[in-house]
């Protein structure tokens, strides 16, 4: 079927030739990788400290506290994720370290899609190599990495011991293992989407470190949605891939004269193969980054290839074409793929981290909004409580002026402080913030201005005093008259001051002749109303403002601290991102 066919031996020779190049041009970005982990780690630690301090800052009743816990919980989740990523990365670096001189080809795909058979074919030219075959071939070096605990899986270091991958009718692979030939490292992975999810997870963890991924799809049902999702993910992380339709053969059956079945493996009908290739190619083209699919979809059959070991048979099986495409990659891109892959991986990690950070930013800006909203709530509450307090105070003032309170100003101060402190607690309770010692601080009553001193309002009056001799009696008369007048006007305590007033007047008594007039200061009123107005102004009307100031002095620092926290997180993230971007940009 193909003109472009290469034998396995030729391909291996190409890889071998490549080994020297790999050796000469190693690209070590180890420093960058550890920088990357360090940067993230430092960021996490910084954030954790900030969080601890922050959560202590807010009262336990404040709904913002649960939000803050939620926030730090979500951030922690991200950090755990990062830690896992870092662990996986260091595992991968460790894993990759041994294969610096070869192209790391990783076989990846659904369970039972022929991965291990293909690996065996690559290693030995047969999917189930016999001991004799192993004797005479160039012997690959097998190695093992990690293994899941899935019961039916392969044994510990099975491939190393048996020098082949386990091939079975049912799910057989549960380890990352592979073999090395000069210039080529081949890694077999457990299947995706099986009922043993652990196997698939292990495969995913290691796939990241591949230079080239051969994605196997069974030709029985190619292009399933779950396959396309996996490929999408690989392409998104800039992996170079090839897609293989494995098992593209079928059986021709017949019966012999004794009533037995006779079978013959043939390749699937050419048209069927073409339909499948077209279909999967079409699906791939719709994906982003589809240029990272290095060759067209290849239908292959190891089973057919090993039964037809002629060059024609190898070509017909599709294996020849696969070898050819690998050889092309070998000659053209393998070195640059190899050199770029670590950086590509790092860039991908940085992109993923950037996404994580964007998510964090969203959470934090949500939290900042809540802080804003809480402040709005508080201010709204304050304006309504202010009206209420002002009205309480006014009622008290009116009452206290009727009651003739002795120490008026003191009483007003006390009451105003009381109301303001009470309302402040109410306002803060409303937003759930009452635990903080700082917020219990009493209102500073010195902020209240006084009311004018009590004084009487007097008028100077001229009156007839008679003769000089009659002074004394008139003196008494005047006192009586004035006392009566004043008593009429004011009554009560005002009367007490009358004597003095009259006394002062007496000194002004004229000394003129027969008809003498005197001038006298007469108390006509006092400044009680002025005092009351001042009290209303200085204690009642001003109360909303004072309450506002009082509460905001208490709440302000908390709010500022919360906003500062958000700002600090934001700055931390920007800094981290800048640093990471620098890492990604520096030349290789």
């Amino acid at each position: 079927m193909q003109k472009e066919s290469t034998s396995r031996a030729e391909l291996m020779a190409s890889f071998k030739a490549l080994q020297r190049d790999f050796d000469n041009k190693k690209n070590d970005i180890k420093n960058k990788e550890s920088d990357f982990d360090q940067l993230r780690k430092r960021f996490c630690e910084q954030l954790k400290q900030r969080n601890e301090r922050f959560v202590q800052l807010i009262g336990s009743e404040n709904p913002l506290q649960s939000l803050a816990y939620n926030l730090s919980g979500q951030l922690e989740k991200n950090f755990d994720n990062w830690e896992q990523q870092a662990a996986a990365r260091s595992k991968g670096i460790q894993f990759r370290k041994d294969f610096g001189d070869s192209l790391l080809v990783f076989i990846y795909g659904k369970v039972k899609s022929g991965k291990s058979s293909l690996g065996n074919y690559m290693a030995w030219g047969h999917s189930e190599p016999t001991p004799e075959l192993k004797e005479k071939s160039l012997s690959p070096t097998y190695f093992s990495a990690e293994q899941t605990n899935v019961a039916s899986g392969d044994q510990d270091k099975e491939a190393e011991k048996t020098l082949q991958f386990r091939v079975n009718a049912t799910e057989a692979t549960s380890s990352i293992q592979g073999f090395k030939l000069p210039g080529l490292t081949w890694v077999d992975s457990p299947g995706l989407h099986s009922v043993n999810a652990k196997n698939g997870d292990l495969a995913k963890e290691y796939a990241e470190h591949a230079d080239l991924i051969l994605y196997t799809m069974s030709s029985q049902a190619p292009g399933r949605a779950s396959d396309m999702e996996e490929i999408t993910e690989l392409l998104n992380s800039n992996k170079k891939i090839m897609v293989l339709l494995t098992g593209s053969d079928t059986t021709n059956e017949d019966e012999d004269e004794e009533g037995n079945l006779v079978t013959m493996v043939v390749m699937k009908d050419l048209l069927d193969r073409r339909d499948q290739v077209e279909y999967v190619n079409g699906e791939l083209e719709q994906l982003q980054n589809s240029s990272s699919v290095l060759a067209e979809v290849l239908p292959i059959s190891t089973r057919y290839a090993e039964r037809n070991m002629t060059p024609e048979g190898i070509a017909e099986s599709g294996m020849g074409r696969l070898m050819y495409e690998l050889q092309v990659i070998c000659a053209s891109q393998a070195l640059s793929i190899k050199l770029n892959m670590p950086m590509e991986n790092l860039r991908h990690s940085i992109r993923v981290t950037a996404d994580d950070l964007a998510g964090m930013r969203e959470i934090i800006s949500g939290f900042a909004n809540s802080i804003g909203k809480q402040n709005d709530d508080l201010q709204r509450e304050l304006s309504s409580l202010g009206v209420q307090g002002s009205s309480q105070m006014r009622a008290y003032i009116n009452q206290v002026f009727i009651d003739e309170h002795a120490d008026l100003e003191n009483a007003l101060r006390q009451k105003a402080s009381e109301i303001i402190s009470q309302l402040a607690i109410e306002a803060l309770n409303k937003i759930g913030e009452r635990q903080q010692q700082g917020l219990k601080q009493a209102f500073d009553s010195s902020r209240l201005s006084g009311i004018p001193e009590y004084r009487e309002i007097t008028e100077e009056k001229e009156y007839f005093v008679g003769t000089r001799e009659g002074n004394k009696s008139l003196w008494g008369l005047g006192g009586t008259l004035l006392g009566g007048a004043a008593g009429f006007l004011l009554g009560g305590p005002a009367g007490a001051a009358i004597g003095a007033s009259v006394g002062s007047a007496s000194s002004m008594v004229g000394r003129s002749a027969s008809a003498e007039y005197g001038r006298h200061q007469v108390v006509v009123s006092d400044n009680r109303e002025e005092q009351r107005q001042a009290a209303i102004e200085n204690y009642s009307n001003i109360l909303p403002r004072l309450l506002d100031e009082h509460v905001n002095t208490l709440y302000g620092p908390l709010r500022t601290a919360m906003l500062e926290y958000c700002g600090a997180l934001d700055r931390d993230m920007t800094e981290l991102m800048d640093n990471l971007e620098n890492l990604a940009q520096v030349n290789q």
Partner: protein
Amino acid sequence: MSEREQVLAQLENACSNLLAVSVLGEKPRIAAWGLVKAGKSSLLNMLSGHVEQEFFKTGAVRTTRVNRELETDHYILVDTPGLGIDDDDSEQAFKGLDSADIILFVHALQGELDQEEIDLLIEVKAVYTEEIDRRLVIVLSQLDKDENGAMNSVSSRIMEQLQEQIGIQPTCFKVSNTRYRKGIAESKPVLTKKSGIPNLAQYLDTLSLEIKDQLEAARYRRQQVREAQLLKELEQAIEEERQFISSLKKPYIEKISIFNQIMEKLRQEFNSHSDEISIIQKKINSI
């Protein structure tokens, strides 16, 4: 369309489907169901005698996009699109599942059941409840791909999976459509017999006769089960809508209640001032 709207549209669809499925006929309906390219259409062609000239269209890539029916002597065969490709196909396939009396779950014998298939079978079990072992027939296709009897271990692994993961023990047949086709076309009895198709056909004939009298009752029960499921989903959707609406209303309600509080305080304030004023008024009058 938002996710919410999609869910609602699906529910609406499910409701109208439930109400529409009424005339199913007197013959049992047998639906082939399973993942894409499992060999469903070929199987139905073989079962209905369309060996040389296919009735249900087949191909190397997915071919069946809508449900298709064929009435035979004993039953009605229903072909459904393969699952695991796209949503429209799946919706058709589930519709086919809803109207079926017997399900042929077709699985290609290359490997054991994967997680996707296990999940699908769990859904089938939900519809058929305790009748499941009788109404579900597992058909392991592409027996011709067998080498060295490997498929025996695959099929016994599958039976284990069915038992362990889903808790069912359905009847299981291994078949090869290509073997049967060749056996019939070239009159080769060994191929025909070893294709497993005659056994399956006979089993379906017998099963159809057996369940014929119980069809209505069973369909009614399934309808009830589905109705109950759908009702539950509807209630859940309604509850979600309610919550959605109340979450939309919440900010306004908050604002209104704050506004009302302020108004109430102002009213009190006004009243207390009015009282004050009227007291002063009285005083003035009394002077």
